[in-house]
């Protein structure tokens, strides 16, 4: 079972690194959104540093979403999903391996790149650190929630938009606590730990519900 898990994880990481993989794409998209916002708002540094965490979080959310529709669809189209079904490995493990691989090539780079993009929205050093921490523990929740939508829309040809409509409402709690934890780090009335721990809890819940939900969706789908 562990061997199957590793095999799938390695395969997906390889695919992401090859031509047309989603690895770098999400990161560039993230950069684009964060770059565009100061152009739209104007060079008001105070305003930018105040809403900076929110901008970074929205950008991270959209960047996570952009390649998510291909998570299971690519396997569905070329028949690989049938191969994945024929294993002694439960579907949950398959989902877990694919989601972790997806997070390693999208969520993790986003979190690590956050300090550099923080410069663009005039974040203070503490805020940058808080951004890295919140994105690091928050993006898994986004990916796992998205995986359920990706599994449900895997057999639809243009499932991307439906996927976004399906999963965005469920990502709101993660967004709220992610941004409030990042804001709490630079001042405010609540301590950093309170929203941060709720964010951790959200990620853990999403990991369980998302894995089981996506596996059920893949099993029932033709």
């Amino acid at each position, binding site marked *: 079972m562990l*061997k*199957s898990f*590793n*095999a*799938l994880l*390695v*395969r997906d990481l*390889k*695919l992401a690194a*090859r*031509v*047309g*993989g989603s690895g770098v794409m999400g990161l560039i998209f993230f950069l684009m959104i964060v770059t565009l916002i100061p152009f739209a708002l104007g060079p008001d540094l105070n305003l930018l540093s105040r809403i900076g965490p929110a901008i970074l979080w929205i950008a991270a959310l959209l960047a996570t979403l952009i390649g998510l529709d291909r998570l299971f669809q690519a396997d569905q*189209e*070329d*028949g*690989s999903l*049938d*191969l*994945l*079904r*024929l*294993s*002694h*490995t439960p579907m949950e493990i398959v989902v877990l391996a694919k989601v972790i691989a997806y997070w390693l090539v999208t969520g993790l780079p986003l979190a690590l790149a956050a300090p550099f993009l923080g410069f663009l929205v005039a974040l203070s050093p503490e805020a940058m650190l808080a951004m890295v921490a919140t994105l690091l523990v928050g993006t898994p929740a986004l990916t796992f929630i998205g995986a359920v939508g990706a599994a449900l829309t895997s057999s639809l040809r243009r499932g991307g938009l439906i996927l976004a409509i399906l999963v965005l409402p469920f990502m709101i709690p993660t967004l709220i606590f992610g941004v409030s934890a990042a804001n709490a780090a630079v001042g405010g009335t609540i301590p950093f730990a309170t929203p941060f721990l709720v964010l951790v809890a959200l990620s853990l819940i999403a990991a369980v519900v998302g894995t089981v939900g996506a596996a059920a969706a893949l099993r029932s789908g*033709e």
Partner: protein
Amino acid sequence: MRLSVNNLACERGERRIFEGVSFTLSAGEALVITGRNGAGKSSLLDILAGRLHPAGGAILLDEAGERTLAECLHYVGHRDALKAALTAEENLTFARDFLGNPALKPREALEAVGLAHAARLPVAYLSAGQRRRVALARLLVAHRPFWLLDEPTSALDTASQETLRLILERHRENGGMIAASTHSPLFLKDAKEIQLERTKIPPPSAGEG
């Protein structure tokens, strides 16, 4: 190991495709499924692979230990389940590690289908027939007793068809079972054959409607 299928029926989109399909397969036996386009050959294989639920009937697997039917079978369908960005060898390495019960090494399996020279090429660069052969090489990298093949000879040239026949016969000699749907003859030794017929739609009875 023994597979018995009893009175199987299939429905797709509320239309009965076939019904009353029964056969048994024991170790070393092969089943060739023929029929017109749309007669339900692929659907029958899909049901055996667990991708579709039968509308009626039963599939029984005996003497297989604790393994489920899905864990006993290889399925090579129309979609070849290969990743275009990975090389032929990488695709097979993944299948070997993922499916468990490893048999031949990816290199050896590619040699067996005559594609040793293409091992390091991304599958995207291969022709339809070569991709089909890589997909068939997957049969050899992991040991599974029951092979489900959906038109295995499509896109294969004559020489490759002969190679495939030899691979299938060797699998049967080792106690394997094969169910293949096909339009062109596979030339398998004393293979069972079933021909699928589309269920006649009963004429509407008078007085109704």
